[in-house]
Structures are given as C-alpha cells and as structure tokens.
C-alpha cells in the first residue's frame, strides 16, 4: 500500500503575549491508501492545525507535507481534484440553499449538476437541499460539508470531526459511508476525539498529543500495546486460587486476586510459562485470557502529561 499522506517534522506555532505556542510540534504522519485512518487527539492537541496545514489553509509552517505524492502547498493545484476536505465546521453562504452552495462550488471546477444531486443523495439531504443553509441544524450542515467533499468523487477524503453534531442514526450513516468509501479503494482520513467512534470505524489510528504523534498503527497493534496483564482462573475456590498465586509469585510474577480469579502482570507471549508452571504443580488452568485496555484507557495513558513529556 502506498502512502497518500506523508508528513514529517511538521511544526506550526502562533505568537502570543506569553511567547510562541506550538500548535503542532514535529508531527510525523503516514496514511496508507484504501483505509479509514483515524486521527485521534484531545481538544487542542493540534489535529485541526495539522489538517489545515495539509489542505493548504495554513501556508506558513516548517516540515514536509506530501499529499498523493505532491509536495504541499505548491503542489496543491495538481491534486486538488483528487482529494476533498472538510475542516472544522462546514462553511457556506447562510442565505443560499444547500443545493445552490454546492452548485456554485461545482461550477467553479466545471463539475456537472448531476454530481451535486448525487452528493446530496449520498448524505441524505435531498429533501432539505432547497432550504437555506442558515436554517440547517448542525448535523445537516455537517452532512452538507461531507456532500461538498463527495462532489469531487475524491480518492482521498480528509475530514475534521465529521461526526460533530450528528445524531446517532447520522453517526451510524456516516460510519457506514466511510466503510463503503474505503471498500471502494478510497482513503478516509478522519480526525476525532470520539474514541468509541474511531474504534468502530477506523482500520488504523494515529494518536496525537501536544502537536506530536504519540502512537500510530492498526487497532489491533494499538490494543496489543495496552495489554498489561493476563487473567487466570483455575478450578475450585479461594484455596486453589491462592495456591496458584503462590506458585506464580515464586516464579517472579506479580499477582493480584480478583473476583473472577487472578490477574497476573505479564503479557500474552509469556502465557505458556504460566500454564507450564501451574501444570507442573498439578494445577490446571480453566481460563486464561489477556486483559486488554480499551482504546480509551490506552489513549489516556499515552496522551497523559507525563507520557507526552517523556
């Protein structure tokens, strides 16, 4: 898989009375084609600034950005029809209808009116297309923003918090749309602070904190990072579990008693050692499973003040 987005050492700072603020501080990022790639970070972590630099809204930064192989921002005109972007809140003329807003954008690039109709249908806005944009709810505005992105029939979609303001059916529809687009071979790069949503819709994730990448990989790879213990149960009651705990402690494992059994501080690649140790003492394991942090716990751990400052 080739990379459709490549960022290295991206830095962007803003002047303030208290000195420069590093909104993005040496961000590295690679996004492969044909996947839904989540860009996860807390508010103020630099996601939007990074995305605005990617799409050319910010032109003065240091570092290297390549989109679809073209260096930004100079190569932007060459690839502008191949990617679509939605940055922050969708911005259109409030007194024009949704359809008119899209038609004007389509006309400026010579796209047909059919592309407008198709984009509106895809996001389910056909019924309200002729109403003024200013009367739209936040969710409808968001959907119109996505429709504008789809006008270009892009191979890469860059979306900044697209689920903002959407109701649950809207979020599900958006998630389904992303999966469908990825299955068609397109790449969806989507920033979010909604961990559950990223977990449900993305193949790969890059986590950012304080303008820096703190971790990147597939969801499975990230989950394996969060694996910190193994749950062990043996047949019998408290006595049997206490015996098993003693055996493991003697072998140097940290063991904690829990309601369901024992929690052993180790990773799954040492699971066979545990079973052998216990079996050698005629204690047979009935349950053995890795305890994996969910993405939320992992994210909080990785983006904590101490973790980022290390």
């Amino acid at each position, binding site marked *: 898989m080739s990379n459709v987005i490549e960022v290295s050492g991206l830095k962007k700072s803003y002047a303030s009375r208290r000195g420069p603020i590093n909104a993005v501080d040496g961000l590295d990022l690679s996004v492969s084609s044909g996947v839904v790639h989540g860009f996860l970070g807390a508010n103020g972590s630099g996601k939007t600034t990074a995305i*605005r630099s990617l*799409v*050319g*809204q*910010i*032109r*003065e930064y240091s570092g290297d950005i390549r989109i679809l192989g073209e260096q930004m*921002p100079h190569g*932007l*005109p060459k690839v*502008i029809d191949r990617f*679509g*972007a939605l*940055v*922050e*809140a*969708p*911005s*259109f*003329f*409030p*007194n*024009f209808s949704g359809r*008119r*807003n899209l038609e*004007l*954008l389509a*006309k*400026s*690039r*010579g796209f047909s009116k059919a592309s407008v109709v198709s984009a509106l249908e895809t996001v389910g806005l056909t019924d309200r297309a002729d109403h003024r944009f200013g009367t739209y709810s936040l969710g409808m505005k968001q959907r119109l*923003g996505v429709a*504008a992105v789809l006008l*270009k029939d892009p191979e890469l979609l860059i979306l900044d918090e697209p689920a903002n303001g959407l109701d649950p059916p809207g979020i599900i529809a958006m998630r389904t749309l992303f999966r469908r687009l990825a299955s068609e071979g397109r790449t969806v790069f989507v920033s979010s602070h909604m961990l559950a949503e990223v977990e449900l819709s993305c193949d790969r994730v890059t986590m950012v904190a304080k303008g820096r990448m703190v971790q990147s990989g597939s969801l499975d790879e990230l989950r394996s990072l969060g694996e910190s213990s193994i749950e062990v149960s043996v047949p019998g009651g408290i006595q049997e579990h206490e015996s098993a705990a003693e055996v493991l402690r003697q072998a140097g494992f940290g063991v904690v008693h829990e309601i369901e059994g024992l929690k052993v501080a180790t990773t799954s690649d040492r699971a066979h050692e545990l079973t052998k140790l216990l079996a050698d003492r005629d204690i047979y394991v009935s349950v053995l499973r890795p305890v994996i942090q969910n993405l939320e716990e992992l994210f909080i751990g990785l983006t904590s003040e101490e973790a980022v400052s290390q």
Partner: protein
Amino acid sequence: MNLLLAELRRLTSRRIFKIPVMVFFGLLTIGLILTVVSALFVEKDPRSLHRSEVPDIDLIFAPFNFWLALLAVVIGSSSLGAEFGAASLSTQLLFEPRRIRVLLTKAAALVLCYAAFMVVFLSIIAALNISEVDEPGGTSWPRVIADGSQIVGVSSLFALIAFSITAFTRKTAGAVFALFGVFLTEVLFLARFEWVRPRLPIMRLISIVAFSSGTDTFGESVQVDLVAAFVVGTIWTAVFLGAATWYFSKAEIR
C-alpha cells in the same frame, strides 16, 4: 472562465447586491410614476423650453454620484467581507487553491456586476431627465455618456479599493471605516492646506465622482485633470489590490 461565471452568479445572488439594486430601481420607479402623474396634471408647452433649459449634466447626476461612490465602497467591501464572515472562502479554496486567481476573479466579478448596474442605472436617470425636453440628444448625450463613464469608472475604483482593504481587515465595517477615516482626514484636515489639497488622492477621486464639473467639496471650482486623476486612481487601486493579493496568498484563511 468557470470560476468567473461562478463568481458572477454568487455575487448577483447575494443580498448585498440584490437589495441596492431593488432599492435604486424602486426609487426610480417611484420617480417615474411621479413624473408621469405630474405630467398629466401640469400642461407644459414643449416649445417654451429652450436649449438653455436642458438640464445641466451636473444636475442630472449630482444628487446621486456621491451616494453611488458610497455604495461602491459598501458593495466592494461587503462582497469580500461577507465571505470572510461566513467562512465560505475556506470552503471555496478547497476547490480552487490558487488564491491569487480566486481573489482577482472575485475583483473582476465585482467590477463587472457593479459597472453593469451603474450603466443601467445612470442610463435610466439620463433618459428620464433628457426626455423631459423637446430636443433630446443633441450635444447632451455625448456628455451624459462621458460623465456616466466617469462616474462608473471612478466608483468602480472605489469599490476595488474597498474590496482590497477588506482582504486585510476581513470585515466589511473595518474597510468602510478605514476608507472613511482617510476621507475625513483628507477633507477635514489636510484639505485645509491649499497646496496639499489638489494632491490628495481621495480628494481627486471624490471630486471626479461627486462633482463632475470639477467643483470640490468646499464649493470652489477646481481644475481636475481627468486623465491624470484616473491614472492616479488606477495606480492607487493597483497598489491596494496588489498588496491585498500578496497578503491573501500568504494568509491563514479560516
């Protein structure tokens, strides 16, 4: 071309353009009705009018031209200010990232729309006034056309300057107040100095647009070299537009 057509459509669909057009043509319609009504009740022998009674060209446009210049400033600045306000520019730049092209196309669309509106408006004003006399045409029409073009040209420069300032201020009010600040500084302060007055760019432009016979705001007759004034005005406009384009090509657009 697609971009220019889209810009023209965008601009002519906007309230900032529609409302002044409706107001101006509404006033014209009322004026026309009043003229017709008065003509029905007041009989006038056309032969009693002599060429000396043909309305003075200055009187034809004088009530309007200052307001047209003001309108130019408001339309010029709000045409871009509203786009910054709605943040629609950021969306547009995701479709056409060549910023210089975008800004200059917007400027071209503004001048085309504004000039077209002006030409129609001034033509109607002139036709209404000249048709009141027995001898239409004659030597008056060339002067009407010359003066009309003068007003259209200069007020378009005002619109462009206001448009350019808005690229910096990003707000309509900011550009309008900046221009009025310069205007008031020149009129109320700098123009008091005899040797400075003829050299003030805004005064020159105002003199042309507001007083087509070359009478300045103090009611004194001044010689205005039209060609020189247009050249100066065009240079000023080019400087403002150039600076705006440079800034716009670098700036962070939200």
